[in-house]
């Protein structure tokens, strides 16, 4: 079966985002951008399923600006077989991304779709669940283990109290949590090879999806800043402070 892996180009997780002074958003000019870390985990998981003989072909897909081709090339260099960019400069909300992915899936017919559990820019944590709803498929969110067995998949999920395992019929939607795997680095020869792998360019209109936003972002501001406090010299001073606060 095929695996479809949606990947998003986001601000690199090491960069501290700066809010624009006019409150219109976060300043992304001249900022390092990378593949969303959870999506690297999704690509890695698809590759491992392929190496284990459970998946035959991996298709990476991204919705975003022309530059997202770099992100897709990274996925191809890691081991995806082909890629599709649905190019748009608009900010596409999870519901619209899910609608586009549904249309892509109708063509690709994947047995499994592996997404990140959240993108680290908007932190929505929605796209996978929405795609599952629109396709009427089961969802295994926040996965820390994925085991395909015949026509079903067991997904171990990171939940508030610990871990939970669910069994889903295939095709299924899986979203990755941090401990699912450690993504590989692409080797130089594989980066070279990735340049020759197919990368299709499409637009949201090709899939007939209306991407008009449903949410209006009216302002983006800095959170209240915390002031650094005092340093204490030793444990006795710390104990005294704690006692003064009524903690001890």
């Amino acid at each position, binding site marked *: 079966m095929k695996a479809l892996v949606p990947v998003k180009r986001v601000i690199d997780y090491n960069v501290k985002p700066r809010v624009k002074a006019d409150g219109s958003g976060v300043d992304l000019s001249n900022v390092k951008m990378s593949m969303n870390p959870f999506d690297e985990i999704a690509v890695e998981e698809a590759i491992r399923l392929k190496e284990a003989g459970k998946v035959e072909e991996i298709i990476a897909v991204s919705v975003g600006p022309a530059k997202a081709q770099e992100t897709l090339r990274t996925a191809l260099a890691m081991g995806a077989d082909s890629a599709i960019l649905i190019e748009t400069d608009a900010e596409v*909300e999870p519901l619209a991304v899910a609608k586009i992915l549904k249309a892509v899936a109708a063509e690709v017919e994947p047995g499994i779709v592996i997404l990140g559990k959240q993108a680290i820019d908007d932190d929505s*944590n929605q796209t996978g669940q929405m795609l599952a*709803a629109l396709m009427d498929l089961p969802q295994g969110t*926040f996965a820390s283990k994925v085991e395909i067995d015949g026509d079903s998949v067991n997904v171990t999920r990171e939940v508030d109290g610990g871990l939970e395992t*669910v069994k889903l019929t295939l095709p299924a939607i899986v979203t990755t949590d941090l401990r699912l795997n450690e993504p590989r680095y692409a080797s130089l020869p594989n980066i070279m090879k990735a340049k020759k792998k197919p990368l299709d360019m499409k637009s949201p209109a090709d899939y007939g999806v209306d991407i008009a936003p449903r949410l*209006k972002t009216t302002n983006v501001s800095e959170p209240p800043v915390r002031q650094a*406090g005092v340093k204490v010299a030793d*444990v006795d001073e710390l104990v005294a402070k704690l006692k003064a606060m009524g903690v001890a």
Partner: protein
Amino acid sequence: MKTLVWVEHDNSNMADATLAAVTAASKLGEVHLLVAGSGCRAVAEQAAAVAGVGKVHLADDAAYAHALAENVAPLVVNLMGHHDAFVCPATTTGKNVAPRVAALLDVMQISDILSVEGEKTFTRPIYAGNAIATVESTDAKLVVTVRGTAFDKAEATGGSAAIEDVASTGDAGKSSFVGAEIAKSERPELTSAKIIVSGGRALKDSETFESVIMPLADKLGAGVGASRAAVDAGYVPNDYQVGQTGKIVAPEVYIAIGISGAIQHLAGMKDSKTIIAINKDEDAPIFQVADIGLVADLYKVVPELTEKL
């Protein structure tokens, strides 16, 4: 506006996270609760006692025992015929179910709200809490998840809402529950603990974490948290992780021990009332947010602190 609030529970007890969601919902309008589970009438009774609640919808069926999204989403969608907003605590259950409901209603969800600014306007954190966005929905119905630390808890008693049984939508036949490993702990639960002692990579291994962090936590009656590095290295289970991708906490006192203060970690604890940091590196970023800092070797000072308290 009529709101439907998802009640978080384990089929016997209602979880506290529900009460913060009730407060958020009450700012929008009338509050109805949904208890979906199996053998969960006791939960419905607790829910009916919450102050300010107008009605409790009880859907009791084996298909709802583990809140599988495939089974509960159609139930919520049916009830949304008579409600204007679906409000979920931003727990792992809420985060799993709410977007599925939103997509079925063709509504764009607003995740992890921090405040209610108007009928359809909310604030929410983006970029790991490094920016706060004000967003307004243009959809006919609302689906929101609520950050528990951002709202006061509604009073658990004083209400006397009617409990109404709701017909089951049955098992969708797509998913089943296999098992769970839920950590049992005598310690306070992280998201409701008044004091949290958290350990990082510096704790070396699970034995060291246990012997250094736990005695201090026990002395203070504190919950125990950890950085991602400590969880990834296997010192403690995943449900201890505090941060952007772990639990969001805001206790009275947060004590960070051997934690550097990466933005992803700060995202989960910087709203704590008082932050105390112990780190041997005086330039560690954690000191930029700490109210009280102690630059020292944790192996020396933490046992001393435990003893002197």
